[in-house]
Every structure is written in structure tokens, then in C-alpha cells.
């Protein structure tokens, strides 16, 4: 398996840290997913989509436990990512790892699970 | 020289940390000296005054380098403390250690120096 060709995102209030473990691409999101985060997140998800294709990963796991907020534009970026993954016929699962104590995380992401129940799952930790 | 009989103060946004070195009583102030800090600071100074007398210290040094703001009620507490010492006829010097990069510190404390130039001095570090 080759190494990742996508860079982490480091901003004042938002961060993305990708890692590859076996055939799972893990993406740790931190900070506040607000207006400032929308652009970088959108670009990142486009890159990660081609990486998922190139590396034939079986799952992308988004760890959002250290995320403080996700606005609807960031949610929309995740929606586009999931739709594109499905549209390319990739058999790649999308998992969200949430902090059970932060109720908003599951509440926000449930809409993505409803959109693509066969692809998306949410795991509280 | 006996040990200090005055406790540290720790609140969410304000802290006071006293130490005794030779015949100088050092008091480190941190955080924001706002409305919430005025009362703890005022009662702290009453205890501190008793300690200055008991230990016959020759100087009280306030390290305000990690202080973010001082409101006028906190300044007033300093004024009362300094006047209280002078009123008791104590020959105890008051020195403020400021951060030269934080211009407001000297600007705020200069009024105390003008009030009691023979007792108060300000040292930028």
C-alpha cells in the first residue's frame, strides 16, 4: 500500500489530519467547522476522494470527537463527498466516530446516515 | 523569617500567587482583573497588609506580566493598599514588574506612581 498523497489542514480554528491504516483512510477533524472551514474542507474531501479511488480503501473513517461544531456548508461538503463516492460505484464505507457525550454530533450526522444508510454509519465512543 | 500566612487565589479568570523571598513579598497576578476580581483582590490586600506588618518586609513586588487587564475597581484596591501601608507609617516599597510589550500596563499603573512616587516604582521587563 502506497503512502497518502493528501496533506493535513491546519488552521487557527479548524484542523484535518488524515492517516492510512491498513485499508481504512482515517480523517480526524478538529475545532470548529464554520464558514472559514468550508473551503479547506471541500478541497480536502475532493483530494481524499481520488485517494480513496487510487488506494482502493474499503472505508473512510471520520473521527469527529474533537470537533466543536459543523455548519450546514461543512455538512454539505460531507454530503457531496458521500454522493460522489456512491456515484463512482466505490464500495467504500463511510464511518463517523463521535463522542457520545456530545449529542449534537450524532444529531447532525444522522441526516447523512438517512441519506445513504448502506454506506454511512455512526459509531459513538 | 517565618512563612507566609496568605493563600493563593485561583478563580476562572484571575489568579494571585504570593511568595516570600528574603525580605521581599512577591505577588504574581494573572488573568483578567475585572468586576469578578475586584472583591477577591480587595480582601486579599487586607490580609497582605497584615503580613507586611508581621514579617516586616521591605518591599512588595507585584508581577503583573501575565495580567490581561485591570479595571478601575482593581486599581482602586491597589490604591487603598498602598495608602494603607503609608498610613501605618511603613517604609515598604511597592514595585510593579510589567511586560514592556504590553503598553497598557505601564499606562494604568503610572497613576499609582504619580500618587506615591516615593513608594511606588514600575520596572519594565
Amino acid at each position, binding site marked *: 500500500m502506497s503512502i497518502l498523497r493528501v496533506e493535513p489542514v491546519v488552521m487557527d480554528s479548524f484542523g484535518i489530519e488524515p492517516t492510512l491504516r491498513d485499508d481504512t483512510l482515517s480523517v480526524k477533524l478538529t475545532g470548529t467547522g464554520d464558514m472559514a472551514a468550508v473551503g479547506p474542507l471541500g478541497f480536502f474531501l475532493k483530494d481524499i476522494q481520488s485517494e480513496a479511488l487510487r488506494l482502493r480503501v474499503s472505508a473512510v473513517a471520520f473521527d469527529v470527537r474533537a470537533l466543536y461544531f459543523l455548519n450546514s456548508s461543512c455538512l454539505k461538503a460531507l454530503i457531496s463527498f458521500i454522493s460522489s463516492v456512491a456515484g463512482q460505484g466505490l464500495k467504500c464505507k463511510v464511518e463517523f466516530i463521535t463522542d457520545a457525550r456530545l449529542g449534537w454530533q450524532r444529531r447532525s450526522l444522522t441526516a447523512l446516515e438517512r441519506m445513504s444508510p448502506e454506506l454511512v454509519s455512526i459509531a459513538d465512543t | 523569617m517565618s512563612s507566609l500566612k496568605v493563600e493563593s487565589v485561583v478563580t476562572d*479568570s484571575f489568579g494571585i500567587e504570593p511568595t516570600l523571598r528574603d525580605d521581599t513579598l512577591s505577588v504574581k497576578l494573572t488573568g*483578567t482583573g*475585572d*468586576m*469578578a476580581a475586584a472583591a477577591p483582590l480587595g480582601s486579599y490586600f487586607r490580609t497582605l497588609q497584615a503580613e507586611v506588618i508581621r514579617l516586616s518586609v521591605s518591599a512588595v513586588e507585584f508581577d503583573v506580566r501575565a495580567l490581561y*487587564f485591570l*479595571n*478601575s*475597581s482593581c*486599581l*482602586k484596591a491597589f*490604591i*487603598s493598599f*498602598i*495608602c*494603607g501601608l503609608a*498610613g501605618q507609617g511603613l517604609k515598604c516599597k511597592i514595585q510593579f514588574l510589567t511586560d514592556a510589550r*504590553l*503598553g*497598557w500596563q*505601564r*499606562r*494604568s499603573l*503610572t*497613576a*499609582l506612581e*504619580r*500618587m506615591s512616587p516615593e513608594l511606588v516604582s514600575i520596572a519594565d521587563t
Partner: protein
Amino acid sequence: MPAPEPSQNASLFLCITFFPSERLANAVLRLVSSFCGMVLDDANVSSRFYMAAHELAENITKYSTGPKVSLELAMEEDESSYILKIRARNEASPERLREVERRLLELKTASDPVKHYDELINETAMIEGVSGLGLARVCAEGGLDVDYKIEGNELTIIAHAPVGRWRADEQLKG
């Protein structure tokens, strides 16, 4: 209390109307601090305005008799300069209004604000309780001009200065 309408030439503007509680005032002041840092690129200028806003916010919160107070910051452009204006508004008791009007009139008419501040410091040094120094400090230490308006039971205190005032002489005066 009717909410203020900022002047049309205000290029940057923040008005916070809030329930006068100490906790809320602290949160409001964090926003004011961000605003000052954002609008004023000079840390020295910014800290003067922040100090003034802080004193005024605490003042209106402490002495309010109404359910809300307001703090307004606006950067206004006139022909030759940028002026930052802080307006603090509350409703207060008649006794408080008389007292504050006396102080403000003294302050406004003092020919030397620093001397006035120092005198107040000496006068109040041994008086327990309220500091009574906040407004004089805004003038003397902050270097802002202070004005006020009383309409009915509503008090508005205005502190303002051109932001360029200290840029040149800061190195000299420290």
C-alpha cells in the same frame, strides 16, 4: 430603551444590547476585545479603546435599573480621519443620574484630565467600596474624549477619539 441608530457613515459597527449581569458583561467584553483587535491594527490604540469599553460596560452593568443596557462601538470616517466612538447606555435611578452627571460634568470641563484623575485617586484612596475612577480613567489613561447625554432616566456616555491620535507620539510617551 430604544435601540440606537448608528450614523450612516459608520464603516465598522458593533452594538450589543444585553441583560445587565456580570457574567454576560464578561462575555460581551470578550467580543469587544476581538472587535478592537480586529478593527485597530495597533495594539496600543486597541488597548486604550478596550480599556474604555471595559470601564463603560462595567459601569452601565453595575448601575442599571432597567432590564437591558447597550454598548456600541463604531468606527466613523470623517473627512480627514477615522474616529472610534464608544456609546454606553443604561437606565439608572435619579440619585445615580445626579451623581454621575456631576462627575461627568467635572470630567468634561477639567482642563487637565490627568490632574483630575490624580486628584480623584487621592480623594478616594481611603474610601471603601466603589472606585469612582472609571470615567476619569477613560479620559486620563485612555486619552479619549468623554461626553454624555441624559434623557429621562436614560444615560448615554460617549467616549471617542480619532484612532490616529496616539500612533505618532506613542514612542515618546510610552
